[in-house]
């Protein structure tokens, strides 16, 4: 596990997730996206982040959640990976939580294989579970989708 135990939390389709804060560049409100024809369905479009082109990925589709309703406005969470920036579309952004490393538990094997790659485990918080999202994996699309 990484040294940081602070997570930037957010919601996607009823899931309560968190990304290591060190991976989060910034969080933005709705921006105009340029669509990419023929791109994998999870790619929502391209974003101009101060002159840098950033691919926006819809986490709902990536996690296999039902699509967003037309009136729901997503937030953009810009995450930093070894390959640069990626924008993740999430439903809402929550607080930054400091968690006890002891509360971590790997994801159970019953998770679908596609999801297990993305969610490395959960932190058992009082009353709810914080899903730990692997930002690098979330930013990487499986080949067959491409």
């Amino acid at each position, binding site marked *: 596990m990484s040294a940081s135990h602070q997570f930037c939390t957010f919601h996607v389709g009823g899931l309560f997730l968190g990304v290591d804060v060190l991976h989060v560049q910034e969080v933005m409100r709705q921006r*105009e*996206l*340029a*669509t*990419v*024809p*023929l*791109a*994998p369905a999870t*790619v929502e*479009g*391209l*974003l*101009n982040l101060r*002159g*840098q*082109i*950033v*691919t926006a*990925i819809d986490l709902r589709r990536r996690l296999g959640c039902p699509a967003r309703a037309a009136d729901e406005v997503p937030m953009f969470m810009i995450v930093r990976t070894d*390959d*640069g920036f*990626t924008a993740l579309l999430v439903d809402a952004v929550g607080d930054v939580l400091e968690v006890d490393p002891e509360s971590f538990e790997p994801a159970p094997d019953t998770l679908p*294989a596609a999801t297990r*790659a993305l969610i490395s485990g959960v932190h058992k918080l009082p009353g709810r579970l914080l899903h730990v999202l692997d930002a690098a994996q979330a*930013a*990487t*699309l*499986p*080949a*067959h989708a*491409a």
Partner: protein
Amino acid sequence: MSQELQQQFVRDMLAESYEGLDRFDRAILVLEQGAADAETLNDIFRVVHSLKGTAGCLGFQRIEKLTHAGESLLDLLRTGRLTPSQPIASALLRLSDNLRRLLGSVESTGADRNDDEHQPLIDEFTALRSGGVPVSSPLPMPPPVPPAPPAVATAEPAPAPAPGATPTTWGIFDESAPAPVPAAPGEPAASWGLFESATTPPPPAASPATPAPAATAAPAAPAASSVAASTVRVDVSLLDKLMNLVGELVLTRNQLTQVSQSRHLRAETVSSVSQRLNLVTTELQEGIMKTRMQPIGTIWSKFPRIVRDIAHDLGKQVRLETVGADTELDRTIIESIRDPLTHIIRNSIDHGIESPAGRAAAGKPAEGLILMRAHHEGGQVNIEIVDDGGGINLARVRQKAAEKGLLAPDAAARLTDREVLNLIFHPGFSTAEKVTNVSGRGVGMDVVKTNIEKIGGSVDVQSSAGAGTTLKIKIPLTLAIVPALIVRAGGERFAIPQVSLLELVRLEGEAAQKALEKVYDAPVFRLRGNLLPLVFLDRELKLPSGTDGDGILNIVVLQADQRSFGLVVDEVCDTEEIVVKPLGKQLKGLPMYAGATIMGDGRVALILDALGLAQHSRVVSQTQDRGHAAGTLDAAAASAAASSSQLLLFRVPGRDHLALPLDQAARLAEIETSTVERTGAREAVQYRGRIMPLVHVGRLLGGAAADTPSATGPLQVIVYSHSDHVVGLVVDEICDIVSAAVELQPGTAAPGIKGSAIIQGKITDFVDVGGILRTAGFPAARAA
């Protein structure tokens, strides 16, 4: 304060002097060819003179002494009391080398030390000079001896070819007459391997005792100094424009402050201010980007000197020509191609260009030609290095590859010529029996390739025996600015780089209706009597159909790989200079896009890649070299399916005729059953120090006797590597390797099977490795 001032002076002196010395070198080369006029002589005199002045002012006595000696010599040349000669030119070039090294030490030690202690600095110079600079001794003559320096310089052992050294070429280039390669004795550490010396400090004293002619081989390039690299020349008009923009930015800020303080905020005021702010910052951003662009000529200008020195050392005559020196590249890219280019040039001279005698025998002019060409093309910068030398001896490369164990002998024989050529990029491949001081250490072309691939480029080599070798480097622009045509289709904007643009055709009303014809199903247009295949951009990209109610047909005629085709768009907007930005790795699998750009209004527009688009729409066959051939598995399989390719035929229980493109198999291996280790349901073996999971193709394809454990013999395994993993595909028997033109029959696909085709008279199923691996639960091969 005075410290800062002093440092500032030193920095200025360094930046100025490095530039001056580059100019100096170029002028000396002109001088050497006897083409120098008075102006050139004055110019080089001024360079040395001003360096002497500054160095004296700042207390760099060594430099002062050295420059003084050179100046005296130049003065004689300038006033015509001495005629330029080869030895003089050589001596002057050595002077500039030595000065560079001295400046280098000023730079490195001067930065480390506190300015209060000048003495240790000077001591270090002394130490470096007496011990570290081989040829410095004859040059810094006591100043007031005007006639002496030329005499010394002439007496100086000019790099007369020193035979005796064994001819040590790789021999992969046809050298009909083995050239008497005058390798310099003494094996100077500094003279070779830019790549090595890039990490090591300035050469330690090789052998101060021998003022070897090898000193001339020490090129200027290792002196690529941080001071020189940390300054940039910017066009004044661009700077003025930036200044104007900053002025406007300040005004806009004031306006914004005012608006925000006003009591009645009106939406339109805010939006107009923000619009203006948007515009100004965008322009400012673009302007700043432009300051980073530099013509490739800035590094090319160093090559005449390098070519001269190497050619001189090897006793060859080489002329360097350049075309397109004004092609602009991003600064960072320019820096990173300097070393690879230098290395290629060295190779070309050492192995490519034959000796004058050899050339005469081959009926070529004694003087070899190296041509460097650069141009923008299709969102990339192409650099070509062409020599008219002997070409690469393919048979020799094959033989060497087999000897070095890079390939099995029969495998080497099977490779196509093109694949053989690419072997020279293999790490450790060198046909040299002996290491010369110019090349042959086996860290050559693979480093070139790695360095270029690091910046996302590709290298390709073409060679024809006896006629020469061409190396083509393609570098993505990343930040390069290209003129592009902006078009609209299906409500989206796209940019098309103008290099791929041939012409625009616009048809209205009835003409538009009549113009469209069809060959069976494919739309075509008669352009001056020739049929031009048409591609509808909106349909091709599955966009909502555009507004074609106005009956206007806009055809953008594009060039892709020697073929032209018409791209039908809804609207042709404008031409613009666009800044090319790379797409994220998630979108690398889409060949029709060359990148993205940000338009004047801040929105993102995709840049179309003519070739990729043509391939996608099958106007051009997919097998064309795309430069970055390492696509996805599926792409590889698709291209294999479309053309003649090498196939691996194998058998699993119940399925006797299966095939796999050979290029998807890394190796074939036999593995003893006893070495297979099991973890849960998975099987794996240790293979070359790594864990290689095994996949039973038969079981996954659900053949008849799927689960029969294969006979007791060793397992036949196709080692298949994708991204970083290796996977072993266990088959029953590997039957054959054939070369065949394959066309998959439609409708034959099945789970795990791409399709079928008739090969050697048998219906053969093509295995979809990607699909099999996914079925087997491997993390899907990611788009590379």
